């Protein structure tokens, strides 16, 4: 019974069309939530449906989302970086030092990005070369990076960035479309293509699902992880440029606690915190959801501390919903 003589059974490529799969996905659920929040906001406040107000709302998430895209890839690959907010602090401080030394805007941007990448390289080296768990490494560097920033700045602050530096965080490309929003949109496309359309993206999923299997399949697992730490560092550097430009100053407490908001965004976007699955469209929608919620509550004069309660409830609710739904259906059968 030779293989070549028997007619092989034909196996179809797919059972469900990609369209069908998309309709049933997490992203669709999240999109429905986003639309619901949008409608609620419209009903709750007469000021919500205003082009400039909506434009302002985007600043709630653009900087976090830049980091969240890279973080999504890192988490899908089975690692995490909790030091991102501290990287912002250190990168911003480095820019401040460069400004004091008379650097112009192009140099400031380069310093910010380079500092971010260096921090990412440091995290990546500790994880891949020494084989340490990334959650421990980056909890350590979280204190380290911000600590350096405190040593340099103490109680003080860097002010007086060049006027043209303000373009990144305060500029508009066209009408109500801000520079930050354009950067966010471009990065969404770039990271979406990188994760979903390239062979590198495929290896990210493979590493996250089964690092041993990926290694045995000839994937340079450590190199993939190193690249992702560098990317996350770079995106944190970029977020530092935008945030510093928007605030116009650097304090060592800049972006405090942002790492958790970034991770929340990634998880809300449907990325499995244990690695292996998730998508960039999911993270993009999650960014809008979080932005809309905080902005809508802001219009209603809800204080920030209550807002974080809402975000927490939203995260738990959206994650628990599908589970509750399937439990309820099982009970009915």
């Amino acid at each position, binding site marked *: 019974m030779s293989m070549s003589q028997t007619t092989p059974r034909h*196996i179809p490529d797919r059972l469900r069309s990609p369209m069908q799969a998309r309709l049933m996905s997490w992203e669709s659920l999240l999109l429905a939530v986003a639309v619901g929040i949008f409608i609620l906001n419209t009903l709750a406040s007469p000021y919500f449906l205003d082009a400039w107000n909506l434009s302002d709302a985007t600043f709630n998430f653009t900087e976090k989302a830049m980091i969240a895209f890279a973080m999504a890839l890192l988490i899908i690959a089975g690692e995490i970086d909790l030091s991102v907010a501290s990287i912002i602090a250190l990168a911003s401080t480095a820019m401040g030092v460069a400004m004091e030394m008379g650097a112009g805007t192009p140099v400031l941007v380069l310093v910010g990005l380079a500092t971010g990448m260096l921090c990412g390289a440091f995290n990546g080296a500790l994880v891949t070369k020494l084989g340490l768990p990334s959650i421990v490494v980056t909890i350590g560097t979280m204190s380290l990076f911000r600590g350096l920033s405190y040593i340099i700045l103490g109680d003080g602050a860097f002010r007086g960035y060049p006027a043209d530096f303000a373009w990144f965080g305060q500029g508009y490309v066209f009408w109500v479309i801000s520079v930050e929003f354009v950067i966010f949109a471009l990065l969404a496309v770039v990271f979406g293509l990188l994760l979903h359309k390239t062979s590198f993206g495929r290896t990210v999923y493979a590493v996250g699902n089964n690092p041993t299997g990926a290694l045995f399949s000839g*994937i340079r697992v450590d190199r993939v992880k190193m690249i992702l730490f560098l990317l996350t560092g770079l995106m944190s550097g970029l977020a530092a440029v935008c945030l510093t430009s928007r605030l116009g100053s650097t304090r060592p407490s800049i972006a405090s606690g942002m790492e958790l908001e970034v991770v929340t965004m990634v998880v809300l976007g449907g990325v499995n915190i244990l690695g292996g699955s998730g998508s960039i469209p999911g993270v993009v929608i999650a960014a809008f959801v979080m932005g809309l919620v905080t902005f809508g509550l802001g219009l209603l004069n809800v204080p920030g501390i209550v807002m974080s309660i809402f975000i927490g409830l939203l995260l738990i609710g959206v994650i628990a919903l599908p589970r509750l739904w399937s439990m309820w259906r099982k009970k009915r059968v």
Partner: protein
Amino acid sequence: MRNLGPQGADGSGDTPPVLTLDNITKVFPGVKALDGVRLDLYAGQVTALIGENGAGKSTVVKTLTGIYQPDGGQILLGGTPVPFATPQDAAKAGVTAIHQETVLFDELSVAENVFIGHAPKGRFGLIDTAAMYKKTGEILSSIGAKISPAVKLKDLSIASRHLVAIARALSVEAQVVIMDEPTAALSQTEIEELYELVDTLKAQGKAILFISHKFDEIFRIADRFTVFRDGQLVGAGIMNDVTEADLVKMMVGRSVDQLFPKREAEIGEDVLVVAGYSHPTEFEDINFTLRRGEILGFYGLVGAGRSEFMQSLIGITKPSKGAVRVGGDIRVIRSPAEAIKAGIVYVPEDRGKQGAILDMPIFQNVTLPSLHKTSNNGFVRMAEEFALAREYTERLDLRAASLDTNVGALSGGNQQKVVIAKWLATKPRVIILDEPTKGIDIGSKAAVHDFMSELAAQGLSVIMVSSEIPEIMGMSDRVIVMRDGRMVAELEGDALTPETLVRQAVGIRETGGDT
């Protein structure tokens, strides 16, 4: 064959067995692991259970300890049938097992390990620590172990841990003690101490089931033997009545020809030359040449260092010495990526962890090492991925609902086909198959064998690591036997017999067989 009959009608039959497995059958999907077997254990005697890998020994242990429920037959304790529905039932009946890796707790003291789950209770239901330490001390000294009950387990040597495991077994007042390859991790002096301990247990009237591959220790300590082959009983009796040769014949004695459709392949030029490959702990001085169209078998006991060597060959672990020549070039292979480039691929034994990525679809598993072929400037082209996956999975007659089904949803045999398809898609020169048919159903087994043969006929060089003698005999042109990390024999033609393989693998010297 002697003493196939039910009772031990062989002279010492006057004492009835303590425990009997009577006509036990256990079926797994596609495999009959035990087929109406009988096993008798006698008080104060050591019964050796002998058989190849896959003969059904571990299934017997799991049935005896209540982990598996038999599909047919009964367990008789002192002549009356008892259900072993749970491990607790088995423990209550006085059956206890010391496994190769008994679960013990590193951070707890010796006494706590011995009495975990059944510690003596004092007032208010609290653990009576003093009594626990005292009893542990008594048990330890009764087996001649000089270990303090207060020491933490992590501070003990492997041999001492073994003694703790045995003490634990004795603390439940066992009638039947199962020892599953107890000497695998022990040094020679420790083994001697274990033998003395077994003698002590015998003197205490325990019935002991001793599972081992090593003939020297079987002849040293066993009073009786039972031999299984393919889940069936092939012989049982008293050790004094048999020789090593008799036992080997019982273990392997079967016709191995017709099952394996080995095709004549033209053997060509040297493809892979391995010289002096060594590793500090796992293997030493491996030398061989693999030719085009050849199937080279690697036989040995589990733990002989075969998989470790193969994984070193593809760059997972680094060798301390040695070189490879592939297709004329001398190469250093430092990673699987470099091995793939050199044309050497490896189908691992552990499919779930090393072979496949279970939570990803079939087509993505197949194309994973070939992504550069199915992508353009780094962008994957899905149509080509499906085409490549289809080409190779259909050649292997894969059964799946669709190519975007996750590999984890397939049967073991079909998972293996996906892994083999993945590696063939890289167009290798050498394919290493590590226990290629372990745990897969008979149908898929035949398909894998047939396909292996076809690959060799097409000019691929195949290395097959296998612990199954029929598979090794049926498929290989030549066989290298490894024992304790070393090559001990290279066999082909008439020298390649099941008896020689087993002799070399377990290390019985006497009558030749070396080539």
